[in-house]
């Protein structure tokens, strides 16, 4: 039961502050060690918005989706503030809301039951007239034949895949849609079309959170971009700011911009460090040209020109 949803109508659909995820592992033998995957993540998604969390592959940002949905593995521990529509998203609350108000759109058909027909799967086994009609309508909308309902996941072609996957979200009336790498390996024009489906969901009033490594795609399709580096979010900016380097804030974001093919393909030396190898301060400090001693202490986030940044020297 969403407490006082009317009062908090202005509250963002999703607000995450200071998310920290770590794993208990056995360190070669019998000693237990904690491995941090996400150190300090902030993100906010409003109703009707599309927000992308952009970070390099394997940087741990995929855990974000699982964390929100309450699906972290058994040896993971999580801390930080997770708010949904103004109130805390506790374990119990997410269990009630997932699949209906908070939905996930999976990457590929590997996330579907291989032995269940598409129709039955999308309908979650419900057979009543209303649900069946709803599915027919959605399929019609996306140009999918009625026959697709009777097919199995392995029989779908590439194009059908994405439409089928997004149908799972369309069946509900979600307030929050989370998509983890929704366009793996697709070229830009095809990927943009896929993102168009998410835009439809946003236009219906949902908040859409996209987790991706594809900065180019994000620039062209979402409203706001959150930049993720070495376990922390370092900058949050409107997508328009990514059209030029000057409008960006954080040194890492600028370096990322310069590394894009159309901007010169420049790179800076060094690689993204493991979260556990970092000390207290700014994660980018070891590679940053403007580093000072103050950067070795925790750097707070601040508002800047309509976005947020965690850097002492951004202007």
């Amino acid at each position, binding site marked *: 039961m969403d407490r006082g949803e009317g009062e908090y109508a202005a509250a963002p659909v999703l607000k995450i502050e200071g998310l920290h995820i770590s794993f208990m592992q056995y360190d070669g033998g019998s000693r237990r060690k904690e491995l941090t995957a996400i150190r300090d993540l902030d993100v906010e998604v409003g109703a009707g918005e599309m927000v992308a969390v952009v970070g390099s592959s394997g940087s741990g940002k995929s855990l974000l989706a*699982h964390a929100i*949905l309450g699906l972290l593995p058994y040896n993971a521990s999580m801390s930080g503030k997770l708010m949904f529509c103004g109130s805390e998203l506790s374990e119990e609350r997410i*269990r009630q809301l997932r*699949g209906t108000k908070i939905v996930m759109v999976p990457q590929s058909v590997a*996330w579907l*039951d291989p*032995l269940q027909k598409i129709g039955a799967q999308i309908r*979650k086994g419900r057979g009543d007239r209303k649900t069946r009609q709803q599915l027919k309508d959605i399929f019609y909308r996306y140009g999918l034949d009625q026959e697709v309902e009777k097919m199995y996941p392995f*029989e779908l072609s590439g194009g059908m895949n994405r439409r089928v996957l997004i149908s799972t979200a369309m069946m509900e009336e979600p307030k929050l849609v989370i998509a983890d790498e929704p366009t793996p390996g697709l070229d830009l024009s095809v990927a943009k079309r896929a993102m168009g489906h998410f835009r439809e969901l946003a236009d219906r009033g949902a908040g859409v959170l996209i987790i991706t490594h594809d900065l180019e795609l994000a620039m062209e399709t979402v409203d706001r971009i959150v930049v993720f580096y070495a376990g922390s979010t370092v900058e949050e900016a409107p997508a328009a700011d990514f059209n030029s380097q000057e409008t960006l804030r954080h040194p890492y974001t600028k370096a990322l911009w310069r590394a894009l093919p159309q901007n010169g393909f420049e790179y800076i030396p060094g690689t993204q460090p493991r979260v556990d190898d970092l000390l207290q301060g700014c994660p980018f400090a070891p590679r940053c040209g403007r580093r000072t001693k103050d950067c070795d202490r925790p750097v707070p986030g601040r508002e800047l020109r309509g976005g947020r940044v965690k850097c002492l020297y951004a202007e």
Partner: protein
Amino acid sequence: MVRQWSIRIAGYALRLLILLFAVSVLTFALMKASPVDPLQANVGQTALGSMSQEQIEKLREYWGVDMPPVRQYLSWAGDFLRGDMGTSLYFRQPVENVIADRLRHSLLLMGIAWVCSGILGFFLGAAAGMFRETWVDRGIRGYCLLMSSTPAFWLALLLLMVFGVWLKVLPIGLSVPAGMEAANVTFWDRMRHAVLPALTLSLTGISNIALHTREKMIEVMEQDFILFARARGENRRQIFRHHGFRNVLLPGITLHFASVSEIFGGSVLVEQVFSYPGLGQAAVSAGLGSDMPLLMAITVVSALFVFGGDALADLLCGIADPRIRRGGFRE
């Protein structure tokens, strides 16, 4: 489509024949290599001592002691393919008769055990895998561990002690009441005598299937699509009904049919304890008595059941799995 399936079945049949042939060769070689003197084993030292050389020669010929191996095998194989399984040296009857008679009893026993252990084992294993680490799982695992560690023959002895000797509610052995005329034996008589052996076999068979089904269920539960189902708000019961059951059914079928081998092995022990005149007991007698034709026939027949079971499981999975049924076989 039909063509694809016919080719598949033909392939199975061919493979079956080759394997059975190899089984017979292996069995023959093993028996021939045995240093056990069939005369000693069956006639006894004292009897031999009082026989004339001529009589001993005759016996040696009867038991096939001196025949050159290759010739002996080929003559056996030739007869076998024509349907003549030879004569049992131990029972002094045609092997077909011995097997036909014993097979009936064994099928009753193994059939009951196979069905019971298959169904119960599947559901117990699936439940244990789905509700991992709860008391359901722990209880089932504990039972299975205990049963797997218990030799079938000792369990048989225990049941015999409790039900046959102490409580005296079930017969001690054999397959029909001792001394009764064949015509007077009723169906219920047979069933009463089969209860204890079948019970023993079922109890041990359940644990095997349950443990393996549990493993498969755990594998299924770790797949991405289960995570997605959870993300969509499906609870445990729904996940089992819509996803878990179906996905574990296919490996379950394979496991079930593969358990034929274990059940046969168990029946050898159980029949011995209960003096139940089945194929297993015949095998033991044939082994102890170096009765080559009978033992070879039993081995080939049991191998036929095992291989046949595996092939049948494969075909069934092919029909049940839509990826194969609709998509064709992928090697």
